[in-house]
């Protein structure tokens, strides 16, 4: 009987492995499990809820804790714990954390993530709280409510929109003999300015091959040339259309013709603008709160129209209620109360360099009076395009950046890069359909 120890150890190990495997299997599936987010204010016993968001830069790190503190002081039975972290880290950790019951009770995510999370069963339907807030699709820019919907239920509540604009360093323009008062609005004007800058020895726009912000610029141009990222039911990538090739060729040409240096690092262009090395930068509205702008003479304008129509990229953020393993209903109710309160107090949100999603808040004239830098962004919203919403779409989107990167570093011609990326994206869309389809 003594000789059996090793054998028993092996047996125990196997049993343990299988046990864990079974435990893993029973980890709850898709769907909300009958739970939903209530519309009424929470009146139960005191609870503490966790709130994940990616607001780590600009003015948000000051404003969000202030708002949370104010909410906590007004609600004896709710304590919100603010957990800011990088957007990238959030999407990296969210699914498995929620499956493990360690995720937040309420979170903010970008428009292209909500459908994925909903399909993965990570979210609770929020139709009731949308009703309680009195929101309908007309209260937001077109398509924004849909971005938070999945299979007929509303999971995301729009909170903010973040379009791109053209940031200008006026001192650099002046040094090249260009009058900063007129910001180019079309291709001719823009290329003339770049040419004049080039003559003065300045690379006018630094093109980078990263998500921030080369991908956003590429997508803006793609829409300007009349293209789109995917077909209507998101079963096929269309970013390699003629419009896409034109868009990417424009960006690569800027490098080839000496308007941009090659090999700009991520964020290299905004740093270059701030350092007075370049004149123009296509960047997001969130940069309006970058304190470093205090050091230079700058303006911001809508992005110029390079293609055949007006268009600009925009992202959006949405509130979500998380369906953690063993989610406490009281916490969800408290989270709903918090989100309602935040929506009622969203007038000051523009201070963070994001535009409030709700039309009436954003279009209140006092907003632009208080934050004049936001005007060009608000002006461009009528022709803004938002991120595609479909389960698992970010994996396909990543290939757009790969293509962009390959093209701007000269590894592939624009068309070849986009075709390769589209081919692979189509595979991913197929995989997504199998993974999340009905």
């Amino acid at each position: 009987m003594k000789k059996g120890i090793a054998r028993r150890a092996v047996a125990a190990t196997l049993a343990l492995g299988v046990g864990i495997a079974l435990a893993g299997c029973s980890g709850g599936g898709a769907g909300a499990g009958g739970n939903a987010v209530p519309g009424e204010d929470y009146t139960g016993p005191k609870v503490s809820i966790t709130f994940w968001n990616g607001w780590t830069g600009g003015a948000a790190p000051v404003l969000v804790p202030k708002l949370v503190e104010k909410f906590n002081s007004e609600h004896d039975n709710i304590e919100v714990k603010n957990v800011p972290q990088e957007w990238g880290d959030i999407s990296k950790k969210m699914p498995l954390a929620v499956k493990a019951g360690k995720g937040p009770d309420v979170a903010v995510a970008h428009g292209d993530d909500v459908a994925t999370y909903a399909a993965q069963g990570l979210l609770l339907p929020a139709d009731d709280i949308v009703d309680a807030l009195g929101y309908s699709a007309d209260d937001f820019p077109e398509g924004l409510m849909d971005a938070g919907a999945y299979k007929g239920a509303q999971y995301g509540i729009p909170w903010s929109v973040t379009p791109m604009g053209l940031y200008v360093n006026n001192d650099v323009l002046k040094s090249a003999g260009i009058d900063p008062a007129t910001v180019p609005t079309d291709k001719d004007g823009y290329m003339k300015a770049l040419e004049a800058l080039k003559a003065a020895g300045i690379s006018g726009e630094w093109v980078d091959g990263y998500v921030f912000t080369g991908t956003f610029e590429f997508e803006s141009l793609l829409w300007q040339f009349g293209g789109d990222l995917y077909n209507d039911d998101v079963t096929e990538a269309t970013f390699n259309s003629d419009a896409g090739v034109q868009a990417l060729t424009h960006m690569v040409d800027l490098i080839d013709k000496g308007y941009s240096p090659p090999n700009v690092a991520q964020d290299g262009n905004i740093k270059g603008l701030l350092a007075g090395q370049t004149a123009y930068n296509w960047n997001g509205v969130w940069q309006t709160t970058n304190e470093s702008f205090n050091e230079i003479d700058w303006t911001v304008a809508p992005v110029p129209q390079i293609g055949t129509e007006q268009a600009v990229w925009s992202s959006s953020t949405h509130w979500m209620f998380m369906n953690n393993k063993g989610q406490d209903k009281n916490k969800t109710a408290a989270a709903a109360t918090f989100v309602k309160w935040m929506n009622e107090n969203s007038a000051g949100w523009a201070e963070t360099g994001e535009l409030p999603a709700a039309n009436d808040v954003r279009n209140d004239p006092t907003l632009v009076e208080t934050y004049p830098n936001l005007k060009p962004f608000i002006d461009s919203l009528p022709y803004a395009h938002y991120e595609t919403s479909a389960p698992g779409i970010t994996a396909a989107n990543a290939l757009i950046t790969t293509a962009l990167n390959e093209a701007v570093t000269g590894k592939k011609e624009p068309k070849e890069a986009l075709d390769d990326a589209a081919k692979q994206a189509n595979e991913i869309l197929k995989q997504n359909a199998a993974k999340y389809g009905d």
Partner: protein
Amino acid sequence: MSSTTVPKTPAPSRSRSAASSAAGSSVQAPRRRPKGVAARTAGLYAVLIFVALAIILPLVWILITSFKTDGDVISNPYGIVPDPASTEAYSTLAEGQQPIFLWLLNSFLAATLQTAIILVTASLGAYALARLEFRGKKIVFGVIIGTLLVPPVIFLIPNYLIVQNLGWLDTIWAITVPGAAGAFGIFFLRQFFIGLPAEIEEAARIDGAGDLRIFTQIVLPLSRPALATLAILSFLANWNDFLWPIYVLLSPERLTLQPGLSQLQGTYSTHFSIVMAGAVIASVPVLILFGIAQKQIVESVASSAVKG
């Protein structure tokens, strides 16, 4: 290879003799070379000083940058003297939402805890493997040895699921206990324990001492150098851990320094001085500790190979 003219050095025996002579923290002193041509010495120093500067100067540059203002970094990126000298970056960090001092503390706690777990479990187990005869010993030892060269990536996904099922995600247990289960510690100590003289132990046994007493009162005290070496190697390994904590730690206040600093880089990507201030805060305490214990640390690492 061209080893015909020279007496061969059978490698294994050399290493074993080195092992016995270098059993403690000391290594054999090199022969003094009588003839030192001045030029050769100068050249030697020149190379060493060049390499030393290549290591020190980047760190000095980081320190300088951390005392610059954002505007200064942008307008005068290569200025050797901060103008104005400012602690702005540090105060931004201190007031910001990134709890860098907590990360530092977490890293120290985790590395210490993991080291303690390894020392206790590995020394107990190594005693059995080195000094006791028992049934199944070959199998147990063989299985342990067999895992020594398995790359950690094998464990990444299954251990994530195991840690998740234990409810350990986002706790210090996740970043200490699984990592303490490795075979290296027990293997390393077993090698050392085997080398201890059997006579003392036998004398104690005749006096009626049990295994626990022999272990705590004879083997452990005699093994201080090996235990210290293992402690240092374990501490460094945990301190350097990067990939695993990225995934198993969720809350910012639970992060350790390595993933934390990587996150800081993302948050303040356009503010070099703030990121560099973070790097300074992450480095200074470690470098001070290293300065104090440098001899012990370096010699522990040095002996890790020769002793095997």
